[in-house]
């Protein structure tokens, strides 16, 4: 009697345990599914489509599925493309250097010279206030400042410092760099501020105890420890500048070119496969730059 009673009990217990086991094996995949779906649908799929389209043929009216490399030979064989790429890299380098310099000192001031945490947060929020408006508005608001009859020029002329308005203030490479530094400096301030706040203050005291002067502390302790933050800021700024087209278009008045602007022009001419090939080349270039930064600085500590 007992035997017959036990048997179904064991039989019932076994599948239950197996079901629970299989569920626990699937759980991690289930948990990862939403993000995987989002990234797949909105990041991976579009990139694959761009890569596919970059091999297609096209004429003035339509695209034809194909496997041609002419789009790439057109991109890489053209003197204009090379010049545009160089120009974009030049913008990236100048903007990077300026934002790094400004960003480091702003972050350094916030982290080491503001005593109270409350004041630090207030000032940091002040830094983010411009970001409450859109990129375009912030960019366009430079026009009345820099224009021929703008604030700066009219002031200079009225003070008699210059005989006629300075032409290169607006619609020039200077204007492009100025607007970009304005737009992207915060992307450098934030990660550097973050790393500086994590530096143990007793390290600074230990350096002082060892006889380091203010500059020696900065050079030997603070800057080396801020490198991960600088690297993250650099990645932000470089990728943003490399992909920028609106700032270049508006602030240079169409006199300067960038890779993204070139792509936009190709798309307005319905040359989608050519733009796609350009996009793939730009993507590879930016990824190489990011990989280079990651090789130089170990940012894992910050993540």
């Amino acid at each position, binding site marked *: 009697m007992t035997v017959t009673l036990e048997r179904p009990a064991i039989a019932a217990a076994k599948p239950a345990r197996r079901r629970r086991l299989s569920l626990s094996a699937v759980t991690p995949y289930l948990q990862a599914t939403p993000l995987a779906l989002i990234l797949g649908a909105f990041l991976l799929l579009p990139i694959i489509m761009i890569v596919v389209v970059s091999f297609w043929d096209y004429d003035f009216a339509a695209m034809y599925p194909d496997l041609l490399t002419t789009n790439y030979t057109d991109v890489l064989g053209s003197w204009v493309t090379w010049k545009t790429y160089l120009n974009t890299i030049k913008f990236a380098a100048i903007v990077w250097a300026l934002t790094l310099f400004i960003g480091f000192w702003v972050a350094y001031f916030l982290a080491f010279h503001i005593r109270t945490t409350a004041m630090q947060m207030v000032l940091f929020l002040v830094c983010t206030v411009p970001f409450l408006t859109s990129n375009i508005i912030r960019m366009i608001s430079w026009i009345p400042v820099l224009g021929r009859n703008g604030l700066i020029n009219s002031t200079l002329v009225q003070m008699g410092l210059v005989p006629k308005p300075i032409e290169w203030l607006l619609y020039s490479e200077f204007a492009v760099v100025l607007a970009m530094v304005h737009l992207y400096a915060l992307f450098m301030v934030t990660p550097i501020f973050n790393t500086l706040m994590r530096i*143990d203050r007793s390290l600074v*005291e*230990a*350096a002082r105890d060892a*006889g*380091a002067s203010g500059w020696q502390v900065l050079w030997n302790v603070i800057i080396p420890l801020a490198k991960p933050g600088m690297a993250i800021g650099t990645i932000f700024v470089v990728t943003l500048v490399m992909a920028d087209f609106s700032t270049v278009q508006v602030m240079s008045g169409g006199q300067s070119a960038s890779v993204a602007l070139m792509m936009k022009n190709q798309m307005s001419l319905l040359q989608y496969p050519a733009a796609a090939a350009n996009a793939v080349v730009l993507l590879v270039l930016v990824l190489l730059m990011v990989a280079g930064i990651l090789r130089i600085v170990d940012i894992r500590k910050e993540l």
Partner: protein
Amino acid sequence: MSKAAEIDIVSVSKVYGTTTAVEDISLKIPPGTYCCLLGPSGCGKTSTLRMIAGHESISSGDVRLGNIVVTDLPPAKRGTAMMFQSYALFPHLDLIDNVAFSLKMKGVDREQRRAKALDLLKLMQMEAYATRRPAQLSGGQQQRVALARALITDPDALLLDEPLSALDPFLKIRMRAELKKLQTSLGITFVHVTHSQEEAMALADLIVVMNDGRIEQAARPREVFERPATAFVARFMGAHNVISGRVTGMRDGMVVFDVNGGGSLAARGQGQKMGQEAGTPIDIAVRTDHVRIGEPPSPGLGFTGIVSNIEYRGATVKLSVTGAGIDDFTVIIDDSDFFARPVALGDAVPLAWDPQDAIALGRLHS
């Protein structure tokens, strides 16, 4: 190594805004002394150390090292070196560069400073790890590197801010022996901040007990333990019962006083505490391990109380006794004595002690 220097602190105060962290302290630390600044957190011991090191400005008073008044000198010009609580090793440098840091700041050339750093790592038996980063070391190893880094400047005095607090108990005892050995072999002055009276007694030649920004007692460990100057010292060092009361008179060279709400006790006075007027408040200390139980006390040297708690501690047994006006009087007796004549919870037991074990305590003038 250079000659040890005397540290002379002359009525030094530290005021932060409206709070006084250190109030008018004076202290002479003879050359080559292992001095422990001991006290609870917030007592001003770390501020005092940081003022000696030069990491904290001195609000008033002076600090002298050897023959030089260092009050306004920067840390590196004082001839002191500090070891920080969390060691403050530079995470981006390997051990050699960490130890060689101060030489690099002085502009000593690379080969020379690395050779000297390696010598100090050898002294600390850390040369095998010379190319590692601090994060790859255990707490005890980090401490040795921090010591090497502090000693590379040949300081006259080494200042240690709670150097053992980050270590586990076992390592703490080992590193404490190493610290003592190092101080003996170098012969320089060590000033060590700690909140552990056990650590202070094990290490120090001179214990400075601090409370509320003031020095309660500065003396050799044995004197601090056996003849605590104040009620605070007696309580902080432990192993003492503190009883408060009001003086009624003198008898046989002892101060007689009434316990508030209890009987009359007597205590041996120390110096100026002899011959106090009747009615002045008085505290006395009675060693917990010098109390005998079950023996009728001679007048003023004991009382009868109710056992309120019994704790078995292996080699000893701790009894808590409540008497008239005396709450929670602790008695520590040997386990063999206890089990020879055991007492139970709620028993009334007579307690007695010898005249030399009842010490009248002083009070700080406020």
